């Protein structure tokens, strides 16, 4: 096998000499590259010692991104309980990387996070709405919790009645899920809301108020 390996290494070197820049600069090409690797059963990010990492430089890019993701999540954990939207994570990581760093896409972040899971810190990716919530603490979030998070994504909060009507659950089940989220610091309780108490997710606050803005805010933004 070692002969084949040497031959492959040469092929890869040739490829790298022509297209290494393309991979560095072009996020769409990176996605294609990763997808094709996955199709044939190869993980270019498994090891820093792998050919892919050494010759194409993809390793350092994603491993460093991993460090930045960990740091952002740690810094914001006290506020959002260890849940953050992919958008907010993206913004914060870009800020941290500074003006002259290479741009990263959301796909890049997701791939880096998938690699971080193996460190046992509870990194997870939860699909909500059209995007993802990133979990960075070892809290147990099962299907019930995930479904409630998805329900809350539209407005940033959810109530027991909404859960009962949308998901057709018993009150007890809804309450259990919401209490778990409260305990983990991922939800905050607003008992002063008109009607019934509202369970807000701080992770979704900026999702509502940064990139995609409401018509009211747009009106205010434009004189």
């Amino acid at each position: 096998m070692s002969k084949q390996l040497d031959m492959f290494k040469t092929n890869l070197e040739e490829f790298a000499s022509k297209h290494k820049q393309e991979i560095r600069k072009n996020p769409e090409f990176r996605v294609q590259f990763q997808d094709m690797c996955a199709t044939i059963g190869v993980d270019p990010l498994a090891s820093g010692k792998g050919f892919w990492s050494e010759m194409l430089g993809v390793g350092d890019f994603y491993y460093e991104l991993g460090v930045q993701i960990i740091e952002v999540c740690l810094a914001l954990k006290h506020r959002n309980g260890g849940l953050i939207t992919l958008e907010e994570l993206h913004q914060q990581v870009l800020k941290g990387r500074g003006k002259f760093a290479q741009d990263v896409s959301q796909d890049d972040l997701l791939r880096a996070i998938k690699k971080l899971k193996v460190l046992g810190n509870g990194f997870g990716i939860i699909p909500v709405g059209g995007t993802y919530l990133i979990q960075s603490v070892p809290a147990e979030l099962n299907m019930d919790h995930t479904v409630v998070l998805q329900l809350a994504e539209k407005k940033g909060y959810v109530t027991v009645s909404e859960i009962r009507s949308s998901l057709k659950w018993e009150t007890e089940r809804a309450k259990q899920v919401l209490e778990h989220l409260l305990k983990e610091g991922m939800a905050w309780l607003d008992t002063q809301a008109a009607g019934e108490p509202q369970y807000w997710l701080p992770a979704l606050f900026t999702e509502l108020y940064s990139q995609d803005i409401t018509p009211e805010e747009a009106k205010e933004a434009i004189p």
Partner: protein
Amino acid sequence: SSSLTQAFPVLMAARSIKTFATVKFDSGVLLLSTHRLIWRDQKNHECCIAIPLSQIVFIEEQAAGIGKSAKIVVHLHPASSNKEPGPFQSSKYSYIKLSFKEHGQIEFYRRLSEEMTQRRWENMPAGQTIQVNKDPQAGRIRAVGIVGIERKLEEKRKETDKNISEAFEDLSKLMEKAKEMVELSKSIANKIKEKQGDITEDETIRFKSYLLSMGIANPVTRETYGSGTHYHMQLAKQLAGILQTPLEERGGIMSLTEVYCLVNRARGLELLSPEDLVNACKMLESLKLPLRLRIFDSGVMVIELQSHNEEEMVASALETVSEKGSLTADEFAKLVGMSVLLAKERLLLAEKMGHLCRDDSVEGLRFYPNLFLTQS
């Protein structure tokens, strides 16, 4: 001006945008709606310029470089005669450049491209827009200058497409070869499984390093050193050296994510993958190094000094909790000066050992000395 107060849904905003055609507009916010591209001065909110998306012929990206930010170049149709007054009467350029000083270029380009493809302004009521392009054929009327520009853009597009397709072709060929390597490794793995006793330790280790180089998951289940290879062995020894002092400074214990960040920040280049780190740490104990990997029930992974005894630390944690009556993981972490993650693990271990019991309410998880045990 009144024509700018239409509340079309705004889809995207990005900060710190410069626009320049003839003169620079500096430091603004760029907004994208289904109908328009709007730039607003960050300091002087009254200053606001907009372009209907229908005026855009083509957009292209300019990657960032040293000393220059990423840009989007927006090529425009010539202005129609009933255009409302704008910042300039005329310009010799038929494009504007948007410079993203604080990132956001990739996402903005993606969203703008989407809007250009969907062309929702054609279906939604125009209302009071700056420029009214009611005649669908208006776009077809070309001034001479535009034809020249479009031809150049077409050539550039073809060139880029060619580069991309060449890269893609090369990538496909490379993947074919990589696929052969995967097949080869499967057949070797099968032979190993069959021969079991006949394969030497050396050959197995060498095979594993081949898999490591290619990024192929190890299909052989018989393991001596886990997924370890010589590389991981060396790495384990290095880690023992690097982590001794940091561990001592942190009370003898660190989470694996902390270690990952510490080690990679120190390295700067040729970073470790998360799997490299885990595989190396799994070998620490068998190599009789002064550190070990420990996995808590929660799945949290830590590195401890061999001399560290978490069970003893539990005894001192019990004292601390008793002194204060009760503590949450946050409070304990602050008192003792550890990370909340590890503080929680210590309290959970104390609970497991029967020294503490919990009060689990919506106000959080609080630990108390286990009086059931001590007072009967």
